[in-house]
């Protein structure tokens, strides 16, 4: 039996129990502990089917010991419906870092952060407009090169996805940080060719609220936000960051980063050290090249901030700052 800790309560995992008596026994053992008093209990029930009467007795037992039954997680429909009947909240207890809701936050907060980022990356944000739509390339072409999940519902989908990943990979290896051809680099960072409409889109992420988080993200943790995300710390392999807007990592990015997850292909990923397993911007995916021996995390003294952008349907990485 596992116990985990959540805010003002704790998780009791009895998901491996197959009998009601076993659940009651294990639960009572935990509830009797002195540190459990006056807290919320989050019960993980797994696939166990619990009818309303049984759940009522569990609830009564928890309450008789001076605690509150907070939430219940379960994969069984019977259990979930009986929880609904008794008015107990159901939730999936995942390894997700809790994030604040953004409803009441004004976009003005964001401007300060942008100014702060100016200082971090040594560049004027208003002029870091890093991508432009190539005039010659029709827009449809860009869309066709992207991975759009909904389209892949047939059997041949797997091969097609592999193909797209392969293409994305080629793009990544082609533009290895040192070997970005100057003409491409210029066109990635040049905004003069953009139409007014595209310039608006470019600024779309600036309007979003930003989640600021100061910690190291470890394997298995995932961070999701409706806005932009700024992480002060490393993002280790095995963790993932998913944001509707931009992602900025003040440290080593080693996990998976997905910017513009609702389809905003103008979103960007920035990090002091880029070593991600996968980079995703909107519907496009690029993966780390299969170089024989890439260190787990490249610990290094020299940090050169880099930025990943989408350009002509592919993901490119370029340096934000050069000595």
């Amino acid at each position, binding site marked *: 039996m596992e116990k985990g800790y959540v805010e003002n309560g704790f998780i009791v995992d009895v998901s491996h129990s197959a009998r009601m008596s076993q659940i009651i026994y294990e639960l009572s053992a935990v509830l009797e502990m002195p540190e459990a008093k006056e807290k919320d209990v989050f019960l993980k029930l797994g696939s166990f089917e619990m009818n309303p009467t049984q759940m009522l007795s569990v609830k009564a037992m928890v309450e008789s010991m001076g605690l509150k039954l907070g939430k219940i997680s379960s*994969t069984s429909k019977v259990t979930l419906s009986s929880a609904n009947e008794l008015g107990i909240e159901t939730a999936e207890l995942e390894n997700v870092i809790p994030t604040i809701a953004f409803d009441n936050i004004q976009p003005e907060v964001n401007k300060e952060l942008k100014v702060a980022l100016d200082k971090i990356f040594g560049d004027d944000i208003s002029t870091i407009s890093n991508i432009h739509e190539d005039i010659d390339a029709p827009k449809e072409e860009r869309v066709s090169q992207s991975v759009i999940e909904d389209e892949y519902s047939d059997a041949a*989908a797997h091969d097609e996805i592999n193909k797209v990943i392969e293409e994305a990979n080629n793009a990544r290896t082609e533009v290895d940080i040192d070997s970005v051809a100057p003409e491409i680099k210029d066109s990635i960072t040049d905004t003069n060719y953009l139409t007014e409409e595209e310039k608006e889109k470019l600024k779309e992420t600036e309007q979003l609220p930003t989640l600021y988080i100061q910690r190291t993200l470890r394997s298995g*943790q995932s961070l999701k936000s409706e806005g932009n995300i700024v992480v002060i710390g490393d993002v280790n392999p095995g963790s993932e960051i998913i944001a509707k807007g931009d992602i900025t990592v003040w440290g080593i990015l080693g996990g998976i980063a997905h910017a513009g997850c609702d389809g905003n292909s103008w979103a960007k990923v920035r990090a002091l050290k880029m070593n991600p397993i996968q980079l995703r911007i909107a519907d496009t995916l690029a993966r780390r090249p299969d170089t024989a021996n890439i260190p787990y995390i490249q610990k290094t003294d020299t940090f050169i901030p880099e930025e990943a952008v989408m350009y002509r349907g592919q993901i490119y990485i370029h340096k934000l700052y050069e000595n």
Partner: protein
Amino acid sequence: MSGRVIVITSGKGGVGKTTTNANIGTALAKKGKKVVMIDTDLGLRNLDLLLGLENRIVYTIVDVVEERCKLKQALVKDKKNPNLCLLAAAQTRDKTAVTEEQLKEICEKLQKDFDFILVDCPAGIEQGFQNAVAGASEAIVVTTPEMSAIRDADRIIGLLEAKEEIKQYHLLLNRVRPNLIKSNDMMSVDEVVDILSAELIGIIPEDTGIITSTNKGEPIVNDEKSLAGQAYMNVASRILGEDVPFLNLEEDTSIMGKMKKFFSSLVGKEQK
């Protein structure tokens, strides 16, 4: 076509379940069989790293179960061998995200298209183990010649025998060090087999090459010179029903040993 579903399990952690899985899978694929490996270690996945496929994973087994993608979309093809596929575990979820029935269903679907389905089991005997065993009809119990690993293997064999679905199980002895056995510092192969009274399918010698192969993301069976690689190749042959003798690990490779062997062969000739 109805594929064989083999679960690779051990009870104790760190005895080489995942390494065994990656190597046997690669070996079977090299022998021309269609193989899919399922990582059921949700939250602590490693099989993708050993195969060097970490950067190719888009969908995981949890996405399949929660119907965010088709089963075929979630199968990651190996870099070298098109016969080999991986169904990866989710790293950001825990063991309760998949149930026994769901795993059984996935195994049944895969049986139609593959010769072998190798299920990588997490350590322990909790939900993760129950899930992994659910769809399997055969098992390979991995153990090392240490008391703690053997006791856990014994527990696992007991649990496997209680399952009706498991028709047969074999023992794989990993990290064997012939030098230590010789000096009576390690249990011998026979002792382990005696304690567990299970049929042996392979003896894998301790090999430092395993560490480099894990870091490179390339199974050691691809290295034909390596003793551990040969041993894993032999295990694959035995799974296919071939009668392959166990490798002679006792051979003394030191200069003194070679000289002894040379002289004893001379003596042998004279006696004839």
